[in-house]
Protein backbone atom coordinates (compact mmCIF):
# COMPACT_ATOMS: atom_id res chain seq x y z
CA UNK A 1 0.00 0.00 0.00
CA UNK A 2 1.29 3.44 -0.82
CA UNK A 3 2.37 5.57 2.07
CA UNK A 4 -0.11 8.26 2.87
CA UNK A 5 1.11 11.83 3.13
CA UNK A 6 0.35 14.33 5.82
CA UNK A 7 -1.76 16.23 3.32
CA UNK A 8 -3.94 13.20 2.85
CA UNK A 9 -4.49 12.85 6.59
CA UNK A 10 -5.21 16.52 6.93
CA UNK A 11 -7.82 16.39 4.21
CA UNK A 12 -9.54 13.43 5.86
CA UNK A 13 -9.34 15.10 9.23
CA UNK A 14 -11.02 18.28 8.05
CA UNK A 15 -13.76 16.31 6.35
CA UNK A 16 -14.49 14.24 9.45
CA UNK A 17 -14.51 17.28 11.68
CA UNK A 18 -16.84 19.17 9.40
CA UNK A 19 -19.29 16.26 9.66
CA UNK A 20 -19.02 16.19 13.41
CA UNK A 21 -19.59 19.91 13.79
CA UNK A 22 -22.60 19.73 11.52
CA UNK A 23 -24.14 16.99 13.60
CA UNK A 24 -23.39 18.89 16.81
CA UNK A 25 -25.02 22.00 15.43
CA UNK A 26 -28.28 20.15 15.10
CA UNK A 27 -28.37 20.05 18.89
CA UNK A 28 -27.86 23.74 19.25
CA UNK A 29 -29.25 24.12 22.78
CA UNK A 30 -26.96 21.39 24.05
CA UNK A 31 -24.01 23.02 22.38
CA UNK A 32 -24.71 26.44 23.87
CA UNK A 33 -25.38 25.08 27.36
CA UNK A 34 -22.24 22.97 27.27
CA UNK A 35 -20.18 25.98 26.30
CA UNK A 36 -21.69 28.01 29.12
CA UNK A 37 -21.03 25.12 31.48
CA UNK A 38 -17.41 25.03 30.44
CA UNK A 39 -17.03 28.75 31.01
CA UNK A 40 -18.75 28.37 34.40
CA UNK A 41 -16.18 25.77 35.41
CA UNK A 42 -13.39 28.12 34.55
CA UNK A 43 -14.97 31.05 36.33
CA UNK A 44 -15.54 28.95 39.45
CA UNK A 45 -11.93 27.81 39.32
CA UNK A 46 -10.86 31.39 39.03
CA UNK A 47 -13.06 32.47 41.96
CA UNK A 48 -11.63 29.84 44.29
CA UNK A 49 -8.19 30.98 43.23
CA UNK A 50 -9.11 34.54 44.00
CA UNK A 51 -10.63 33.67 47.39
CA UNK A 52 -7.47 31.82 48.37
CA UNK A 53 -5.30 34.80 47.54
CA UNK A 54 -7.65 37.16 49.37
CA UNK A 55 -6.51 35.43 52.53
CA UNK A 56 -2.92 34.61 51.69
CA UNK A 57 -0.48 36.84 49.82
CA UNK A 58 1.60 34.08 48.29
CA UNK A 59 2.08 30.33 48.10
CA UNK A 60 5.56 29.00 48.63
CA UNK A 61 7.17 32.09 47.17
CA UNK A 62 4.82 32.23 44.21
CA UNK A 63 2.86 35.45 43.94
CA UNK A 64 -0.75 35.78 42.88
CA UNK A 65 0.11 36.72 39.30
CA UNK A 66 2.70 33.99 38.93
CA UNK A 67 0.13 31.46 40.08
CA UNK A 68 -2.33 32.99 37.67
CA UNK A 69 0.21 32.47 34.92
CA UNK A 70 0.45 28.78 35.82
CA UNK A 71 -3.31 28.55 35.90
CA UNK A 72 -3.73 30.12 32.47
CA UNK A 73 -0.93 28.01 31.10
CA UNK A 74 -2.49 24.78 32.32
CA UNK A 75 -5.89 25.78 30.93
CA UNK A 76 -4.44 26.31 27.47
CA UNK A 77 -2.38 23.14 27.72
CA UNK A 78 -5.41 20.95 28.40
CA UNK A 79 -7.47 22.44 25.59
CA UNK A 80 -6.10 20.22 22.80
CA UNK A 81 -6.97 17.11 24.75
CA UNK A 82 -10.45 18.49 25.32
CA UNK A 83 -11.00 19.44 21.67
CA UNK A 84 -9.21 16.75 19.73
CA UNK A 85 -9.24 13.65 21.91
CA UNK A 86 -12.76 13.79 23.29
CA UNK A 87 -13.67 10.51 21.63
CA UNK A 88 -11.48 8.73 24.18
CA UNK A 89 -14.39 9.11 26.59
CA UNK A 90 -16.58 6.95 24.35
CA UNK A 91 -13.92 4.33 23.66
CA UNK A 92 -15.04 2.19 26.57
CA UNK A 93 -18.63 2.20 25.37
CA UNK A 94 -17.65 1.48 21.78
CA UNK A 95 -15.44 -1.40 22.84
CA UNK A 96 -18.13 -3.04 24.94
CA UNK A 97 -20.98 -2.57 22.55
CA UNK A 98 -18.86 -3.95 19.75
CA UNK A 99 -19.12 -0.80 17.66
CA UNK A 100 -15.38 -0.48 17.82
CA UNK A 101 -14.99 -3.23 15.27
CA UNK A 102 -16.00 -0.86 12.50
CA UNK A 103 -12.83 1.14 13.01
CA UNK A 104 -10.73 -1.97 12.55
CA UNK A 105 -11.75 -2.22 8.92
CA UNK A 106 -10.80 1.27 7.83
CA UNK A 107 -7.77 1.40 5.52
CA UNK A 108 -6.23 4.13 7.63
CA UNK A 109 -4.46 4.51 10.94
CA UNK A 110 -7.06 3.41 13.46
CA UNK A 111 -5.93 5.76 16.24
CA UNK A 112 -6.00 8.70 13.87
CA UNK A 113 -9.39 7.83 12.50
CA UNK A 114 -10.94 7.20 15.87
CA UNK A 115 -9.76 10.48 17.39
CA UNK A 116 -10.68 12.48 14.28
CA UNK A 117 -14.29 11.54 14.52
CA UNK A 118 -15.08 14.01 17.27
CA UNK A 119 -14.07 17.59 17.67
CA UNK A 120 -15.23 19.09 20.92
CA UNK A 121 -16.02 22.70 20.17
CA UNK A 122 -16.76 23.71 23.75
CA UNK A 123 -13.09 23.42 24.59
CA UNK A 124 -12.59 26.61 22.64
CA UNK A 125 -14.30 28.62 25.37
CA UNK A 126 -11.73 27.27 27.77
CA UNK A 127 -8.95 28.18 25.35
CA UNK A 128 -10.17 31.77 25.21
CA UNK A 129 -10.39 31.90 29.00
CA UNK A 130 -6.90 30.45 29.32
CA UNK A 131 -5.38 32.86 26.85
CA UNK A 132 -7.09 35.75 28.62
CA UNK A 133 -5.75 34.64 32.00
CA UNK A 134 -2.26 34.08 30.64
CA UNK A 135 -2.19 37.44 28.88
CA UNK A 136 -3.43 39.22 32.00
CA UNK A 137 -0.82 37.56 34.19
CA UNK A 138 1.84 38.26 31.57
CA UNK A 139 0.90 41.93 31.56
CA UNK A 140 0.77 42.20 35.35
CA UNK A 141 4.13 40.49 35.76
CA UNK A 142 5.57 42.94 33.24
CA UNK A 143 7.15 40.14 31.24
CA UNK A 144 8.74 41.28 28.01
CA UNK A 145 6.85 40.51 24.81
CA UNK A 146 9.48 39.36 22.36
CA UNK A 147 9.29 36.94 19.49
CA UNK A 148 11.57 34.53 21.36
CA UNK A 149 9.37 34.56 24.45
CA UNK A 150 6.24 33.92 22.42
CA UNK A 151 7.87 31.08 20.51
CA UNK A 152 9.13 29.55 23.76
CA UNK A 153 5.63 29.79 25.26
CA UNK A 154 4.06 28.13 22.26
CA UNK A 155 6.62 25.32 22.10
CA UNK A 156 6.20 24.58 25.79
CA UNK A 157 2.44 24.77 25.56
CA UNK A 158 2.54 22.07 22.89
CA UNK A 159 4.83 20.01 25.11
CA UNK A 160 2.45 20.33 28.00
CA UNK A 161 -0.52 19.27 25.87
CA UNK A 162 1.36 16.19 24.71
CA UNK A 163 1.70 15.04 28.32
CA UNK A 164 -1.97 15.55 28.99
CA UNK A 165 -2.89 13.69 25.79
CA UNK A 166 -0.58 10.85 26.75
CA UNK A 167 -2.28 10.41 30.12
CA UNK A 168 -5.75 10.45 28.58
CA UNK A 169 -4.83 8.01 25.80
CA UNK A 170 -3.25 5.56 28.18
CA UNK A 171 -6.15 5.77 30.61
CA UNK A 172 -8.72 5.36 27.84
CA UNK A 173 -6.82 2.41 26.37
CA UNK A 174 -7.15 0.60 29.69
CA UNK A 175 -10.68 -0.31 28.61
CA UNK A 176 -9.23 -2.90 26.26
CA UNK A 177 -8.14 -4.85 29.30
CA UNK A 178 -10.38 -3.93 32.20
CA UNK A 179 -14.03 -3.36 32.81
CA UNK A 180 -15.30 -0.06 34.10
CA UNK A 181 -12.32 1.96 32.96
CA UNK A 182 -14.36 5.14 33.29
CA UNK A 183 -12.98 5.70 36.76
CA UNK A 184 -9.39 5.49 35.53
CA UNK A 185 -10.07 7.94 32.76
CA UNK A 186 -11.85 10.28 35.12
CA UNK A 187 -8.94 10.03 37.54
CA UNK A 188 -6.43 10.85 34.81
CA UNK A 189 -8.59 13.76 33.81
CA UNK A 190 -8.78 15.07 37.35
CA UNK A 191 -4.99 15.16 37.52
CA UNK A 192 -5.14 18.33 35.50
CA UNK A 193 -6.35 20.07 38.65
CA UNK A 194 -2.98 19.40 40.25
CA UNK A 195 -1.09 20.79 37.32
CA UNK A 196 -1.75 24.40 38.16
CA UNK A 197 0.28 24.36 41.37
CA UNK A 198 4.05 24.60 41.60
CA UNK A 199 5.37 21.11 42.20
CA UNK A 200 7.66 22.45 44.91
CA UNK A 201 4.76 22.57 47.36
CA UNK A 202 4.67 18.78 47.44
CA UNK A 203 6.95 16.65 49.58
CA UNK A 204 9.88 14.84 47.96
CA UNK A 205 7.98 11.60 47.37
CA UNK A 206 5.13 13.24 45.55
CA UNK A 207 7.49 15.54 43.71
CA UNK A 208 9.14 12.42 42.33
CA UNK A 209 5.81 10.80 41.46
CA UNK A 210 4.44 13.89 39.75
CA UNK A 211 7.63 14.36 37.78
CA UNK A 212 8.52 10.88 36.62
CA UNK A 213 5.58 8.52 37.08
CA UNK A 214 2.54 10.70 36.55
CA UNK A 215 4.20 13.57 34.77
CA UNK A 216 1.68 16.27 35.63
CA UNK A 217 4.39 18.67 36.72
CA UNK A 218 5.16 19.00 33.02
CA UNK A 219 1.70 20.31 32.25
CA UNK A 220 2.41 23.75 33.67
CA UNK A 221 5.17 23.94 36.23
CA UNK A 222 8.35 22.94 34.39
CA UNK A 223 7.43 24.63 31.12
CA UNK A 224 6.37 27.83 32.90
CA UNK A 225 9.69 28.12 34.69
CA UNK A 226 11.32 28.84 31.36
CA UNK A 227 9.17 31.95 31.02
CA UNK A 228 8.72 32.98 34.65
CA UNK A 229 12.09 32.26 36.23
CA UNK A 230 14.59 32.31 33.36
CA UNK A 231 17.52 32.42 35.78
CA UNK A 232 16.76 29.17 37.56
CA UNK A 233 15.51 26.80 34.92
CA UNK A 234 16.20 23.17 35.81
CA UNK A 235 17.38 20.74 33.15
CA UNK A 236 14.00 19.02 33.33
CA UNK A 237 12.33 22.10 31.87
CA UNK A 238 14.52 22.02 28.79
CA UNK A 239 13.99 18.29 28.51
CA UNK A 240 10.22 18.57 28.68
CA UNK A 241 9.60 18.67 24.91
CA UNK A 242 11.45 15.36 24.58
CA UNK A 243 9.62 13.93 27.56
CA UNK A 244 6.33 15.06 26.08
CA UNK A 245 7.01 13.30 22.80
CA UNK A 246 8.22 10.14 24.51
CA UNK A 247 5.18 9.91 26.75
CA UNK A 248 2.85 10.59 23.86
CA UNK A 249 4.51 7.89 21.79
CA UNK A 250 4.28 5.36 24.62
CA UNK A 251 0.60 6.10 25.12
CA UNK A 252 0.03 5.77 21.37
CA UNK A 253 1.71 2.34 21.36
CA UNK A 254 -0.40 1.22 24.31
CA UNK A 255 -3.55 2.39 22.59
CA UNK A 256 -2.61 0.68 19.32
CA UNK A 257 -1.62 -2.52 21.10
CA UNK A 258 -4.98 -2.59 22.83
CA UNK A 259 -6.78 -1.97 19.55
CA UNK A 260 -4.82 -4.75 17.81
CA UNK A 261 -5.90 -7.21 20.48
CA UNK A 262 -9.51 -6.24 20.07
CA UNK A 263 -11.53 -9.06 18.62
CA UNK A 264 -15.02 -7.67 18.76
CA UNK A 265 -18.01 -8.92 20.68
CA UNK A 266 -19.35 -11.15 17.96
CA UNK A 267 -22.48 -9.13 17.37
Amino acid at each position, binding site marked *: MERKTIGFYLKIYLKLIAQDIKSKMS*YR*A*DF*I*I*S*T*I*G*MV*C*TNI*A*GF*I*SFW*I*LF*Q*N*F*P*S*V*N*GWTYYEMLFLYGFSLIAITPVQCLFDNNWSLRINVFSGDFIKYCFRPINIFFYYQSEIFDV*KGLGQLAFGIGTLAYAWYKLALPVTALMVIKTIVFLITASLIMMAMQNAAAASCFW*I*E*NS*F*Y*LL*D*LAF*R*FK*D*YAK*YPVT*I*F*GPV*FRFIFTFLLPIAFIAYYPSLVILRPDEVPVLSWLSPVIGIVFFYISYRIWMYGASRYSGTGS
Partner: protein
Amino acid sequence: MRKYLTMARMGIMESLHFRLGMFVLVVGNILYLTLIYYLWKAVYASSGTDVVNGLTFKDTLIYLVLATALYSFMEMYTVWEIGRDIQSGKIVLDLLKPIEYQSYLFWSFSGSLIVHFVCVFLPTFVIVFIVTKGGIPLGMNLIWFLISVVMGVVINFCIDYIVGTICLFTESIWGINIMKQVIVLLLSGVTIPIAFFPEPFRTVVYYLPFQAVYNTPLKILLSATPTLESTGWMLLVQFFWCVVMLLISRIFWLVSLRQITVNGG
Protein backbone atom coordinates in the same frame (compact mmCIF):
# COMPACT_ATOMS: atom_id res chain seq x y z
CA MET B 1 -41.73 0.23 53.32
CA ARG B 2 -40.73 -3.22 52.09
CA LYS B 3 -40.32 -2.11 48.48
CA TYR B 4 -38.03 0.75 49.51
CA LEU B 5 -35.79 -1.60 51.45
CA THR B 6 -35.66 -3.99 48.52
CA MET B 7 -34.49 -1.20 46.25
CA ALA B 8 -31.91 -0.12 48.79
CA ARG B 9 -30.62 -3.68 48.98
CA MET B 10 -30.39 -3.89 45.19
CA GLY B 11 -28.34 -0.71 45.17
CA ILE B 12 -25.98 -2.12 47.80
CA MET B 13 -25.40 -5.26 45.77
CA GLU B 14 -24.92 -3.30 42.58
CA SER B 15 -22.28 -0.99 43.98
CA LEU B 16 -20.44 -3.83 45.70
CA HIS B 17 -20.20 -5.44 42.30
CA PHE B 18 -18.03 -2.63 40.96
CA ARG B 19 -15.13 -3.08 43.31
CA LEU B 20 -12.52 -1.72 40.93
CA GLY B 21 -14.49 1.49 40.61
CA MET B 22 -14.48 1.71 44.38
CA PHE B 23 -10.74 1.15 44.49
CA VAL B 24 -10.01 3.85 41.94
CA LEU B 25 -12.38 6.16 43.79
CA VAL B 26 -10.39 5.64 46.97
CA VAL B 27 -7.02 6.08 45.23
CA GLY B 28 -8.29 9.22 43.53
CA ASN B 29 -9.46 10.60 46.83
CA ILE B 30 -6.17 9.86 48.53
CA LEU B 31 -4.30 11.70 45.78
CA TYR B 32 -6.72 14.59 45.97
CA LEU B 33 -6.30 14.79 49.74
CA THR B 34 -2.53 14.83 49.32
CA LEU B 35 -2.90 17.81 47.07
CA ILE B 36 -5.10 19.56 49.61
CA TYR B 37 -2.64 18.80 52.40
CA TYR B 38 0.40 20.16 50.60
CA LEU B 39 -1.39 23.13 49.12
CA TRP B 40 -2.78 24.37 52.42
CA LYS B 41 0.44 23.60 54.21
CA ALA B 42 2.29 25.79 51.73
CA VAL B 43 -0.40 28.44 52.01
CA TYR B 44 -0.25 28.54 55.80
CA ALA B 45 3.55 28.46 55.79
CA SER B 46 3.60 31.54 53.58
CA SER B 47 1.03 33.45 55.62
CA GLY B 48 3.24 33.90 58.69
CA THR B 49 0.44 33.40 61.21
CA ASP B 50 -1.06 30.23 62.58
CA VAL B 51 -4.67 31.30 62.61
CA VAL B 52 -6.36 32.69 59.54
CA ASN B 53 -10.03 33.64 59.77
CA GLY B 54 -10.30 31.75 63.03
CA LEU B 55 -9.06 28.50 61.50
CA THR B 56 -5.71 26.86 62.10
CA PHE B 57 -4.05 24.66 59.51
CA LYS B 58 -5.33 21.61 61.36
CA ASP B 59 -8.92 22.91 61.47
CA THR B 60 -8.86 23.71 57.77
CA LEU B 61 -7.44 20.34 56.90
CA ILE B 62 -9.93 18.36 58.98
CA TYR B 63 -12.74 20.38 57.46
CA LEU B 64 -11.58 19.90 53.88
CA VAL B 65 -10.79 16.21 54.24
CA LEU B 66 -14.20 15.46 55.74
CA ALA B 67 -15.90 17.71 53.18
CA THR B 68 -14.24 15.76 50.38
CA ALA B 69 -15.27 12.48 51.95
CA LEU B 70 -18.84 13.75 52.33
CA TYR B 71 -18.85 14.92 48.75
CA SER B 72 -17.66 11.64 47.30
CA PHE B 73 -20.23 9.78 49.33
CA MET B 74 -23.12 12.06 48.40
CA GLU B 75 -22.39 12.58 44.71
CA MET B 76 -24.60 10.03 43.06
CA TYR B 77 -24.62 11.36 39.49
CA THR B 78 -28.39 11.64 39.78
CA VAL B 79 -28.51 14.25 37.04
CA TRP B 80 -26.86 11.83 34.64
CA GLU B 81 -29.29 9.11 35.58
CA ILE B 82 -32.32 11.30 34.98
CA GLY B 83 -30.82 12.77 31.83
CA ARG B 84 -30.04 9.37 30.38
CA ASP B 85 -33.49 8.08 31.22
CA ILE B 86 -34.94 11.05 29.40
CA GLN B 87 -32.72 10.69 26.34
CA SER B 88 -33.25 6.98 25.99
CA GLY B 89 -36.94 7.20 26.70
CA LYS B 90 -36.66 4.76 29.61
CA ILE B 91 -38.31 7.40 31.76
CA VAL B 92 -41.66 6.46 30.27
CA LEU B 93 -41.36 3.00 31.81
CA ASP B 94 -40.28 4.44 35.15
CA LEU B 95 -43.23 6.78 35.15
CA LEU B 96 -45.57 3.87 34.68
CA LYS B 97 -44.21 2.10 37.75
CA PRO B 98 -46.55 2.03 40.71
CA ILE B 99 -44.26 4.33 42.65
CA GLU B 100 -43.51 8.02 42.47
CA TYR B 101 -40.52 8.62 40.17
CA GLN B 102 -38.78 10.85 42.68
CA SER B 103 -38.96 8.36 45.50
CA TYR B 104 -38.12 5.54 43.10
CA LEU B 105 -34.87 7.32 42.22
CA PHE B 106 -34.08 8.27 45.79
CA TRP B 107 -34.54 4.77 47.14
CA SER B 108 -32.65 3.10 44.36
CA PHE B 109 -29.75 5.41 45.16
CA SER B 110 -30.01 4.85 48.88
CA GLY B 111 -28.25 1.49 48.65
CA SER B 112 -25.10 2.87 47.12
CA LEU B 113 -25.32 5.83 49.50
CA ILE B 114 -25.07 3.43 52.41
CA VAL B 115 -22.19 1.54 50.80
CA HIS B 116 -20.33 4.76 50.09
CA PHE B 117 -20.94 6.02 53.60
CA VAL B 118 -19.46 2.87 55.10
CA CYS B 119 -16.63 2.44 52.59
CA VAL B 120 -15.62 6.04 52.01
CA PHE B 121 -16.78 8.31 54.77
CA LEU B 122 -16.33 6.10 57.83
CA PRO B 123 -12.71 5.09 57.09
CA THR B 124 -11.83 8.72 56.37
CA PHE B 125 -13.46 9.76 59.62
CA VAL B 126 -11.54 7.16 61.61
CA ILE B 127 -8.23 8.00 59.92
CA VAL B 128 -8.70 11.71 60.51
CA PHE B 129 -9.57 11.03 64.12
CA ILE B 130 -6.44 8.92 64.67
CA VAL B 131 -4.05 11.12 62.70
CA THR B 132 -5.16 14.31 64.43
CA LYS B 133 -5.17 12.52 67.81
CA GLY B 134 -8.76 13.36 68.62
CA GLY B 135 -9.16 16.46 66.47
CA ILE B 136 -12.83 15.65 66.14
CA PRO B 137 -14.86 16.08 69.32
CA LEU B 138 -16.94 13.01 70.16
CA GLY B 139 -20.23 13.30 71.95
CA MET B 140 -23.78 14.30 71.24
CA ASN B 141 -22.53 16.12 68.17
CA LEU B 142 -22.20 12.77 66.38
CA ILE B 143 -25.94 12.20 66.59
CA TRP B 144 -26.74 15.73 65.45
CA PHE B 145 -24.20 15.24 62.69
CA LEU B 146 -25.91 12.09 61.42
CA ILE B 147 -29.29 13.81 61.38
CA SER B 148 -27.71 16.71 59.59
CA VAL B 149 -26.05 14.43 57.02
CA VAL B 150 -29.38 12.79 56.22
CA MET B 151 -30.92 16.20 55.63
CA GLY B 152 -27.88 17.17 53.57
CA VAL B 153 -28.41 14.09 51.41
CA VAL B 154 -32.04 15.03 50.89
CA ILE B 155 -31.22 18.64 49.96
CA ASN B 156 -28.45 17.47 47.63
CA PHE B 157 -30.80 14.99 46.01
CA CYS B 158 -33.42 17.72 45.51
CA ILE B 159 -30.87 20.02 43.88
CA ASP B 160 -29.91 17.19 41.55
CA TYR B 161 -33.55 16.43 40.89
CA ILE B 162 -34.33 20.03 39.99
CA VAL B 163 -31.31 20.15 37.70
CA GLY B 164 -32.34 16.82 36.20
CA THR B 165 -35.79 18.21 35.50
CA ILE B 166 -34.19 21.02 33.55
CA CYS B 167 -32.78 18.27 31.32
CA LEU B 168 -36.35 17.56 30.25
CA PHE B 169 -36.31 20.90 28.46
CA THR B 170 -32.74 21.13 27.25
CA GLU B 171 -31.84 17.50 26.55
CA SER B 172 -28.34 18.56 27.50
CA ILE B 173 -26.81 16.64 30.36
CA TRP B 174 -23.13 17.40 30.37
CA GLY B 175 -23.44 21.18 30.33
CA ILE B 176 -26.20 21.34 32.92
CA ASN B 177 -24.48 18.88 35.21
CA ILE B 178 -21.10 20.56 35.09
CA MET B 179 -22.70 23.90 35.92
CA LYS B 180 -24.49 22.40 38.90
CA GLN B 181 -21.35 20.65 40.05
CA VAL B 182 -19.11 23.72 40.08
CA ILE B 183 -21.77 25.88 41.70
CA VAL B 184 -22.42 23.36 44.47
CA LEU B 185 -18.72 22.65 45.03
CA LEU B 186 -17.86 26.30 45.34
CA LEU B 187 -20.87 27.63 47.25
CA SER B 188 -21.13 24.73 49.69
CA GLY B 189 -17.60 25.24 50.94
CA VAL B 190 -16.14 21.94 49.72
CA THR B 191 -13.38 23.58 47.71
CA ILE B 192 -12.57 26.33 50.19
CA PRO B 193 -14.14 26.63 53.67
CA ILE B 194 -16.81 29.31 53.69
CA ALA B 195 -14.97 31.05 56.55
CA PHE B 196 -12.36 32.18 54.03
CA PHE B 197 -14.83 33.89 51.72
CA PRO B 198 -14.54 37.68 51.63
CA GLU B 199 -17.34 39.48 53.43
CA PRO B 200 -20.34 40.39 51.29
CA PHE B 201 -19.88 37.14 49.41
CA ARG B 202 -19.89 35.08 52.60
CA THR B 203 -23.19 36.48 53.87
CA VAL B 204 -24.82 35.80 50.52
CA VAL B 205 -23.56 32.22 50.55
CA TYR B 206 -25.09 31.66 53.99
CA TYR B 207 -28.51 32.55 52.61
CA LEU B 208 -28.29 29.90 49.89
CA PRO B 209 -29.30 26.23 50.23
CA PHE B 210 -25.91 24.88 49.08
CA GLN B 211 -24.11 25.50 52.34
CA ALA B 212 -26.72 23.35 54.10
CA VAL B 213 -25.50 20.30 52.19
CA TYR B 214 -21.89 20.09 53.38
CA ASN B 215 -21.10 23.06 55.56
CA THR B 216 -23.84 22.59 58.16
CA PRO B 217 -23.10 18.93 59.01
CA LEU B 218 -19.40 19.66 59.26
CA LYS B 219 -19.90 22.69 61.42
CA ILE B 220 -22.09 20.70 63.76
CA LEU B 221 -19.51 17.93 63.90
CA LEU B 222 -16.44 20.06 64.35
CA SER B 223 -17.67 22.83 66.61
CA ALA B 224 -15.43 22.81 69.69
CA THR B 225 -17.92 24.46 72.04
CA PRO B 226 -21.37 23.56 70.77
CA THR B 227 -24.37 25.12 72.43
CA LEU B 228 -27.74 23.52 72.05
CA GLU B 229 -28.99 26.82 70.73
CA SER B 230 -26.56 27.14 67.83
CA THR B 231 -26.83 23.46 66.86
CA GLY B 232 -30.60 23.63 67.03
CA TRP B 233 -30.68 26.75 64.92
CA MET B 234 -28.46 25.21 62.25
CA LEU B 235 -30.60 22.08 62.12
CA LEU B 236 -33.71 24.20 61.89
CA VAL B 237 -32.35 26.15 58.93
CA GLN B 238 -31.38 22.89 57.30
CA PHE B 239 -34.82 21.45 57.89
CA PHE B 240 -36.31 24.58 56.34
CA TRP B 241 -34.24 24.03 53.19
CA CYS B 242 -35.19 20.37 53.15
CA VAL B 243 -38.87 21.20 53.02
CA VAL B 244 -38.46 24.07 50.57
CA MET B 245 -36.28 22.08 48.18
CA LEU B 246 -38.55 19.04 48.34
CA LEU B 247 -41.54 21.21 47.49
CA ILE B 248 -39.76 23.03 44.68
CA SER B 249 -38.42 19.85 43.12
CA ARG B 250 -41.78 18.09 43.36
CA ILE B 251 -43.77 20.99 41.91
CA PHE B 252 -41.23 21.74 39.19
CA TRP B 253 -41.24 18.10 38.13
CA LEU B 254 -45.03 17.85 38.00
CA VAL B 255 -45.36 21.10 36.06
CA SER B 256 -42.62 20.11 33.62
CA LEU B 257 -43.97 16.65 33.05
CA ARG B 258 -47.16 18.01 31.56
CA GLN B 259 -45.48 19.84 28.75
CA ILE B 260 -42.90 17.39 27.71
CA THR B 261 -42.44 15.06 24.81
CA VAL B 262 -40.11 12.14 25.20
CA ASN B 263 -38.41 10.16 22.50
CA GLY B 264 -40.17 6.85 22.06
CA GLY B 265 -37.96 4.38 23.90
